[in-house]
């Protein structure tokens, strides 16, 4: 590995300095709630609201999955820190989506309990190790990235399409990091998502 290749430790952000709080990461790293909502309100349709609510459902599930993973006792530092970091991003997405849906006159879909998400994701049967937690997160991140890409044509405005692309990019970045930590080489073929 040459001098420019990052180590897994540095990829996960543990350089020895203080970590940003999940809340601060959510505000700084995610979509600005008010900007998103303002953009979304311009030419919203009910279809847009419905799609944003589906996206919100995805974010609720992702937040729960990271909670379940972090609370499982299976994750060691620095992987645990990365899980909290990524959960913070998803909380930022969630908050921006809730504001946008509300501003567009819709009712944001509520989160289920962690137990309900764990059952639906079949965690008890499939998650027994740190690697299993990471693989679950990796799968959900890829699914979310592809979902955000797949809904782009259905949005009524270019602004919403672009925001969906930005959300997809966040999820793709999570997927790439998780894949690296799992020791997986990047896919040889291009157009990895979508």
């Amino acid at each position, binding site marked *: 590995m040459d001098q420019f290749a990052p180590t897994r430790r540095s990829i996960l952000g543990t350089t020895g300095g203080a970590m940003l709080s999940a809340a601060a990461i959510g505000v700084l790293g995610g979509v600005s709630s008010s900007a998103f909502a303002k953009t979304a309100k311009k030419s919203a349709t*009910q279809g847009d609201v419905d799609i944003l609510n*589906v996206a919100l*459902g995805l974010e609720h599930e992702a937040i729960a999955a990271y909670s379940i993973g972090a609370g499982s006792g299976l994750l060691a530092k620095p992987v645990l820190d990365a899980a909290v970091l990524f959960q913070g991003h998803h909380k930022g997405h969630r908050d921006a989506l809730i504001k946008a849906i509300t501003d567009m006159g819709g009712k944001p879909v509520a989160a289920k309990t962690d137990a309900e998400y764990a059952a639906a*994701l*079949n965690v008890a049967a499939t998650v027994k190790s740190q690697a299993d937690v990471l693989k679950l997160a990796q799968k959900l991140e*890829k699914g979310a990235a592809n*979902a955000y890409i*797949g809904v782009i*044509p*259905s949005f009524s405005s270019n602004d919403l399409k672009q925001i969906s692309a930005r959300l997809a990019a966040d999820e793709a970045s999570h997927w790439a990091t998780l894949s690296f930590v799992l020791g997986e080489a990047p896919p040889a073929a291009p157009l990895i998502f979508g």
Partner: protein
Amino acid sequence: MVNAKGRSLVAMGLTFILAVIAGTGAIMATASGAAPAMPAGDATRGAQVYEDNCTGCHSLDANRVGPAHRGVFGRKAGSAPGFAYSPALKKAKFAWDVAKLDTWLTNPQGFVPGAKMGFRLPDAQKRADVIAYLKKESGK
């Protein structure tokens, strides 16, 4: 009397005319909105398409953001037990078959206005493959 060369020219001419007629028919069918035939689906490839594109919201055996898919093929639309469908899909009166799933996956909200799903799968081969997978996983 027509010689061999003449017969050959006539045959070529007839072949050309038949090709023009066939081509014109195809152009007219396309212009009239007739859909091109669906490619044959492969359930094995479809499993990967499902994994990559559908498992963000769906599972075979659990309702998540989207309804569970085991048994979807042949099932009445909007009827997976325990899932909170849109009113539009709940009152839909059709059962899922190859053609309906293909149209749905091309543009769900265009097919069923008021549906919540906005995800589109634009590649016809991927749609055919994932439909073949869903059909297999539905025991059909």
